[in-house]
């Protein structure tokens, strides 16, 4: 019954968008409650659908749109967990936003845009075809542009919004190219589609993957990956994410936790069969993800802006998710479950962290951690909820992040034994850095002495309530749900007409047999972090599981990282001063502080010099050459006319002379002609 109302999941937030946009100005708090109600309604519908379909049903509705395309709803396990997560987290963020945006003159605009943002993300998640997904994907980009630039009077906000839109646009273009390539390949097959089937629908794509040439598959996969890289802030298109902090903190929370950045990971997960079938498809995903995880973590280490630290941490964690999908080359669809589990868990604790940071900023009125310190004394609730978030992010045992992140590291190890150890090494290093920068942040904000004069008060309950709820999930979600989650998501691709063994052959994945049917694996991955043990069994020849030191390594890494951070930044146990470790002139330190000179390269060199320079050259060509020849031609005509008109002297005597001479010549010519006999 709920399934009939699936469209409401998008329709309600869209309605809220329209109401807030046109009527919000007349409503208290900019009509924020409408947005909350809308997303909450979407959450109810999602839960209803969950109760109806769990564990083994999917919902697919579709209607024609134009030409060869359709609009439709596809709710399978993958989409459903995303729907639940997005509606849940976004509802909490909107509740929090009611407190956070209170008194802002643009509140109505904020809630309208936020509602549209939620609607776009939800539409993206349960789209049943790639074109529709792309449309909502772009709308998500638009909303992020609007929200990042929410305080448009600030030049930096306007610039950041533009940067976010343009950077993701680069990825989007690749995505679009991938879609078009895919469409043309499918169209070239001249499939006999049943009524109600359309070329770009996911089930149709899945069913015909084996008929597409492998090199085309790779190109398509790279195109889609380009889109995912842009949206999910992977290297080298991650540059927009830290700047995106210019928006209100709630926006950062939405972008970083629940909505925008997860879209890229979701896309790769959604198209996992295609990536799996494409030679080098997953290798590229793994490479990008693992590198980004480490790269962003190093930048998180050196930022002073609390929101930028969190932003880099998001980039890094997204790298983990990508790498988790990438190593699916070794473990099959199990990787989707692992990666999406991290995505969901991450959205809880990252939303929590951002909202905590927002709470702190709301009180302290600065983003700079160097001006905070000792905030914990005044904001107990914020401090402890943020501690839960930080522990979860750092991967402290029994917290959500521990289960999800460590699972990725473990399957990366398995990938290592089969194919290549590099992703594993990168991810472990990134995990250490994650623990360090997370607690560097926590210690610098909440412990120690006050380093500036700030307002000392706790945030209102409308803000703290969501924090507590999110903290509960950040704490307990992992331990409560991991097992069922894996088995639920493992069943995702069984609803479609595809055979992973066959796809693996196309993709060149040398697997030892059983990975074509990985459904059983998750069920055995019961014992907390031992998910990989089950995986190992399913992997057959691998033996009983990973060595014990691989299993506990993540725990050591997390605790070691936290301790290291404490030694540097917790005043009670402080042993080292971070500024003393390296000299001021150290080029590596300088490079880290400058963020690897990315701004200089991407904005300064590429955008301003190369692109704008090309534009200026074109302009010169246009003026001098393309328009120039025309002006030259008209100038030449004018010049010629200047000469010719001199014949007209204006002196009557000249005319008379010419006249007489003309008559004489005529007479002579005619006479001669008569003499000769011509006339």
């Amino acid at each position: 019954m709920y399934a009939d109302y699936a469209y409401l999941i998008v329709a309600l937030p869209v309605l809220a968008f329209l109401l807030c946009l046109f009527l919000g100005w007349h409503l208290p708090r900019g009509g924020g409650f409408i947005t909350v109600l809308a997303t909450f309604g979407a959450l109810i519908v999602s839960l209803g659908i969950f109760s109806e379909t769990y564990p083994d049903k999917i919902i697919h509705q579709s209607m024609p749109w134009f030409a060869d395309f359709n609009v439709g709803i596809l709710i399978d396990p993958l989409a459903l967990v995303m729907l639940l997560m997005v509606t849940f987290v976004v509802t909490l963020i909107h509740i929090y936003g009611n407190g956070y945006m209170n008194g802002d003159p643009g509140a109505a605009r904020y809630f309208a845009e936020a509602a549209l943002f939620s609607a776009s993300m939800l539409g993206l998640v349960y789209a049943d075809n790639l074109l529709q997904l792309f449309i909502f994907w772009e709308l998500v980009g638009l909303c992020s542009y609007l929200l990042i630039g929410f305080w448009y009077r600030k030049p930096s906000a306007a610039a950041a919004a533009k940067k976010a839109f343009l950077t993701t646009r680069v990825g989007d273009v690749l995505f679009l190219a991938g879609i078009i390539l895919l469409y043309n390949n499918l169209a070239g097959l001249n499939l006999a589609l049943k009524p109600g089937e359309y070329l770009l629908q996911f089930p149709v794509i899945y069913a015909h993957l084996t008929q597409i040439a492998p090199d085309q598959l790779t190109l398509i996969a790279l195109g889609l990956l380009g889109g995912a890289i842009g949206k999910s802030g992977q290297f080298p298109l991650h540059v927009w994410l830290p700047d995106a902090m210019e928006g209100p903190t709630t926006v950062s929370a939405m972008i970083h936790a629940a909505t925008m950045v997860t879209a890229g990971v979701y896309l790769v997960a959604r198209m996992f069969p295609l990536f799996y079938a494409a030679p080098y498809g997953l290798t590229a995903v793994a490479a990008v993800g693992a590198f980004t995880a480490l790269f962003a973590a190093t930048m998180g280490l050196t930022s002073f802006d609390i929101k930028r630290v969190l932003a880099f941490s998001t980039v890094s964690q997204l790298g983990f998710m990508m790498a988790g999908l990438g190593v699916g080359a070794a473990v099959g669809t199990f990787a989707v479950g692992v990666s999406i589990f991290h995505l969901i868990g991450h959205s809880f604790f990252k939303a929590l962290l951002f909202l905590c940071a927002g709470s702190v900023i709301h009180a302290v009125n600065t983003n700079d951690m160097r001006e905070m310190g000792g905030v914990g004394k005044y904001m107990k609730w914020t401090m402890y909820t943020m501690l839960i978030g930080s522990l979860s992010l750092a991967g402290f045992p029994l917290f959500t992040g521990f289960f999800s992140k460590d699972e990725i590291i473990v399957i990366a190890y398995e990938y290592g034994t089969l194919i290549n150890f590099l992703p594993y090494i990168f991810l472990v290093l990134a995990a250490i850095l994650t623990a360090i920068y997370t607690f560097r942040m926590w210690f610098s904000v909440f412990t120690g002495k006050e380093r500036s004069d700030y307002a000392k008060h706790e945030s209102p309950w409308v803000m703290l309530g969501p924090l507590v709820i999110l903290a509960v999930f950040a704490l307990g979600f992992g331990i409560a749900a991991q097992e069922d989650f894996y088995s639920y998501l493992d069943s995702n691709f069984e609803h479609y007409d595809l055979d992973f063994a066959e796809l693996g052959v196309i993709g060149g994945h040398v697997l030892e047999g059983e990975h074509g049917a990985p459904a059983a694996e998750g069920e055995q991955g019961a014992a907390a972090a031992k998910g990989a043990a089950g995986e190992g069994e399913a992997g057959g020849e691998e033996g009983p599981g990973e060595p014990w030191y691989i299993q506990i390594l993540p725990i050591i890494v997390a605790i070691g990282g936290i301790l290291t951070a404490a030694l540097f930044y917790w005043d009670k146990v402080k042993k080292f001063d971070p500024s003393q470790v390296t000299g001021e002139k150290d080029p590596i330190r300088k490079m880290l502080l400058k963020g690897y000179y990315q701004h200089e390269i991407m904005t300064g060199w590429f955008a301003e010099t190369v692109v704008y320079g090309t534009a200026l050259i074109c302009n010169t060509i246009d003026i001098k050459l393309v328009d120039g020849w025309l002006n030259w031609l008209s100038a030449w005509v004018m010049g010629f006319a200047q000469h010719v008109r001199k014949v007209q002297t204006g002196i009557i005597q000249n005319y008379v002379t010419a006249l007489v001479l003309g008559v004489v010549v005529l007479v002579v010519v005619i006479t001669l002609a008569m003499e000769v006999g011509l006339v």
Partner: protein
Amino acid sequence: MISNAISLLIAIPLLGAVVSFFAGTKAKFVALIASLIPLALSLQMYLEFDKTSKIMQFVESYNWVPSIGVKYTVGVDGIGFPLVLLSTIVSLLVIIYSWGETKKPNQYFALLLLNEVGVLGVFTSLDFFLFYIFWEIVLIPMFFLIGSWGGPRKDYAAIKFFIYTHVASLVMLLAIFALYFTYQMPDGSRTFDMLTLLAATADKTIFPTNMLNIIFAGLLLGFLVKMPAFPFHTWLPDAHVEAPTAGSVVLAALLLKMGGYGLFRVILPMLPHVDKAFVTIIAIIAVISIVYGAFMALAQKDIKKLVAYSSVSHMGFVTLGAVAFTWMSVTGAMFQQFSHGIITCVLFMSAGTIQHVVGTRVIADLGGLADRMPKFAVIMMAGFMASLGLPGMSGFVAEFMVLTGSFATLPAYTMIVVFLSIVTTAAYHLWAMQKAMFGPILKKYMNVHEPHAYELFSMAMIIVLSLIFGLQPGLITDIMGTAATQVMQPVMTLTQMGVI
């Protein structure tokens, strides 16, 4: 069923033009009525239009100058009808937008209506002679609009516009004469009938390839200059910059579409019979127009010039889709004509509004205007988003169809270039938005205020239209799809269709 619908469509604005010329300050009311009626008429035609039929509809044919085979033949199919609809919509909105015109309003509105007459005639004529007359009629009101109501360099711009496009038209006229004098009807007489002549170009015994190549090149030049495509585009920015806002809107939204219309109506049916090199040439011109237009827009300092170059870029998609010659790309290109026609209105209106509210269009001198005119900022933002191809608005559907369709026939590397231009397109739109509208409000603009309600209304209507056709493209792509199928096949004459 309205009889003589098309003749009425052409006659009413013509009558309106005459009346409003003598109506003095009441001219705007006359103009409003004289543009509302054609809109109502064309909407009624839309309802009556048979979307699946491949024959010409609403055909009227009368002898005009029988001794030389000139007839008054008008009719619409899927190529022409969407543009008729576009013309009536845009003409009405432009007249509403210009409601506050105080300088010689009687002439102003008369010229706008005359413009409507011209474009409607071009989109409906099925006789080359009539077609050419309307084609040239359009030049006159536009020349005066630029020349009398224009900016500081209006004389240069008006003359450049006139001479440039007129020279191209003359070349086109020569090509039309070549068609006329080569083809003889079975009874020995000659005809200007468009479809008959186009159908005859398929016959190698009448039109040998070498000869057809030259005729084709002449016609192509006429249309590409009007479009305008890459090396022939330089009249456009000058004309746009100097023209009054309404002139710019009509110029970009309707006059450029005449070139595209010619492409579909005349060029595509001949394309299979001429030298294959033409396909390459046109494709190169299209790709260069798209990319070059985008880069040029990025380099502009004047917001109106930026918009003008964006037209060059967007019209490149029409050329690209047409020459790619697949069903999808041709449909997309037709839709791009329609979509660009409505979207570009809001861009030029925005530029015009900024000009008269703030007093300058130089992007570097603007800043923070959103602070003082939030409603205008929202509408302008929506327009810019539509123009950069945001899904949900009509521009995306059109460009997506063109790209998808073109991918099948054109080499991949040309497509890569086009894809890169999409990013550039986004860049110049956002850059202009950011510089003009965002950031702190400049002190000197503290007193600016929202533009007049009629200006906001006409812009908002366009946004609504763009959304409607973006969310439900089938409303108009159904018609275009039938026409695209038709374009792929040999031309049927009116007699073969059985309509006369």
